[in-house]
């Protein structure tokens, strides 16, 4: 089953957020960075908890693995592929030239952009669903994060969802 316009296969896995359960502990962020990069640095997390602690607004921002993946389409070096196992839109760091076109494309629709720059390596990073065992879901202590998987593919993100502003 293919995406609406792009012809790119739908993702089969997707992270689902139940915002009301989020306690803003940010375990997901620290686990994500350590899992993918071996260091504790929320700036390298592919999931981002936007938290306004004074107004009690907590919201984990996850990559939707969009039906029409704007990041993938914007990439001039074809560095973003579809993971055959999960359908996740995955960046190959060796092919990434650090141009940030994917970040801008995602940011057009979703704020904060779900693709981020690893400034030290000058490559873009994004959620790869940990090849089907998302560590953020595994550790989330409140149940605010879930992993949904469907063999037949899941309509998600752009253009299904409305724009999200910062």
């Amino acid at each position, binding site marked *: 089953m293919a995406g609406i316009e792009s012809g790119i296969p739908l993702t089969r896995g997707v992270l689902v957020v139940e915002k*009301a*359960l989020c*306690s*803003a*502990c*940010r*375990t997901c962020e*620290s*686990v994500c*960075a*350590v*899992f993918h990069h*071996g*260091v*504790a*640095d*929320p*700036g*390298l997390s592919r999931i981002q908890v936007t938290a*306004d*602690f*004074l*107004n*009690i607004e*907590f919201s984990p921002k996850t990559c939707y693995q969009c039906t029409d993946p704007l990041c993938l389409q914007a990439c001039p070096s074809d560095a973003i592929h579809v993971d055959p196992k999960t359908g996740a839109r995955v960046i190959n760091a060796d092919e990434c030239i650090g141009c940030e076109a994917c970040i801008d494309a995602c940011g057009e629709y979703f704020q904060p952009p779900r693709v981020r720059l690893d400034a030290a390596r000058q490559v873009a990073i994004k959620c790869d669903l940990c090849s089907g065992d998302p*560590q953020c879901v*595994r*550790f989330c*202590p*409140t*149940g605010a994060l879930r992993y949904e998987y469907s063999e037949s593919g899941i309509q998600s993100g752009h253009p299904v969802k409305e724009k999200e502003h910062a």
Partner: protein
Amino acid sequence: MPSPIFGWVGKILRVNLTTGATEVVETARYTHQYIGGRGMASRIYWEEVPPDCRAFDPENKLIFTTGPLTGTPAPSAGRTNMAFKSPKTYSIESYAHSHAGGHWGPELKYAGFDGLIVEGQAKQPVYIWIDNGRAEILDAKHLWGRDTFATQQELARTHGPRIRSFVIGIAGEKLHRNAVILTDTDSAFGDSGPGGVMGSKNLKAIAVRGEGRIGIARPRELLETSYELFRLITRKEGEPEPPHPWRRMGGWAGTKMEEEQQRGEAELGLAACFGCPVACRRTVKLRDQSMPAGALQCSAMQSYEELEKRYYGGKTWGRTTFRASQLANMYGIGSRELLWNEATREDRGGLNWVEDCYQNGVLTEENTGLALGKMGSQEFIEEYMRKLAYREGIGDILAEGIPRAAEYIRDHPDEFNLTPQKAAQAYALYEKATDPRMGGYFGRAGRFGGYTLHRWGASEYPLGLRIHSPVCQIFTAVDPRDAQTQHDYSIHMVAEGHSWMPPGSDVWRNTLENFAEKWFGSKQAFEASTYDYKPEIAIFAQHLNLEKENLILCDWIFPVTYSRYTSDYLGDRELTGPSKLFSAVTGINKSRDEMWAIAERCWNLERAISCREGRRRQDDWLLPGYFDLIDQQGHTIDREEFRRAMDRYYQLRGWDAETGVPTRIKLEELGLVDAADDLAAAGALPG
């Protein structure tokens, strides 16, 4: 090329507010012997804060430390420790440690610092801005006089929404002895009054932004060790158990707030400190926005709920309780100072003393200007907190904390239109409550710190067991401040609050007996009717407490002695969780026993600090009201039994039983030769 460091980020920032100078101290100077957190802070205090300095002197320092786990995925690794000369301990100001959660500690590490030492005194209000390895002292005239929420909002407007700030409110500015240093809406260094010390330095806030990283020596091992602990704390593998203990308990069930939520007037939730699977704070957002949104913790919630219920009727825990705790947070006042409970309970706080004084004609509506007859109303608490924070009228006296306020009233009867006899009752009520079942006041700091009566002091335990008492008596006698170790003890040793094994049940008894046999060689070790094993248990618990506070982890979670999710309810069986986390993060392999040896060194250094500041064995005693208490089974504390237990405690500790000062042999064994030399030079060392 320097070798990579893991866990710690390598530098401690020193900011001198008198000179405006900043410098960097190498963390490695302390890590080998003290690891971080409370151990490292006490070492810096030992080296840098003169024993004769007063709490509000420029020579006092605010020593903030994180630990090697702070900011990593280790469960609950979001905390920060402080050491300073406390203005709250009574009758003399002395060393104290204080702790806070939130997200500031991790941010400090991402900014490149393991700790921060603030010294000196600014000429005018300033704040410290730490931005990715750089620090500036900036003008805070526009922030002075603002509450803690407004101050943080203004700082976020200036430096961006991602910063984290520790700030003081009006109470800290006004040198309240129970003022806190607060971050977000409710996480604070609440114990021992650090807010006033910060105010005495003209320091309004410490704002931090960090975008750096913390190296992890063995990332996969850290994740798997953390996961095992998460699993013990929150859920069985593969079972999406409702994970939150308070949610399991029903959270808001049976409260006025729950009714508000059902009517759509309040939105309720949970908030966690960085990396914490427990999320012990509840959040409230009112639809009509008549009060700011906020999170709050149990001690704050308990402070006014019974009074609210008594005044308004109906259920506990409505807007008035929320507002009372929020006022404490916004003004930056320690909420335990507000605590009120029924006379039959032992966790009675500052408002209990005020009410007892009112009922005995010591404090009146006339001599206080307070509507004391309306205690429990929102109107009363708004006025009380305002006067307290701004030190208006009676608030100026109360801002000194209950013991000193009681002393002041006793010594100044004319100012309150009282006879000397009546005024003396203010102190008598503080010192020794008249009803033996009543106890003293929770917020009462004894000489050298400890609260005389923690809630487990003489047992209000459901079955009338004296289970907590003997160990907690020792804690209370020897701790440098409120004996926080009791919290660890209640939850992690005798399994208070574990709903799946109610105290007194067979499963509870079996579990505790298994634990007692494993660690103390006797199923009877926790038996409360005897002092046998209690000094040993006290030392064991003190070392577990320091092990996690050096790293730093939270006492809501560690040690993970028990777990709902194992077949026999035992948790981290060998208690190796903290040492495994430490080894995985830093790459330095330390066994559990080595970690406990470091904890012993830290405990002895804190004792050396106390002794240098004048503490001796006669100070390690319970205040008079304690011995008059009668528990539900009719027991009282036997002075001789308690004295013998203390003798054994000193003996096991390697301290001189006569003076309570550590011996040279013990100090040298722990590598504290300089502490032995300093104590000897001061004539304090026995032998």
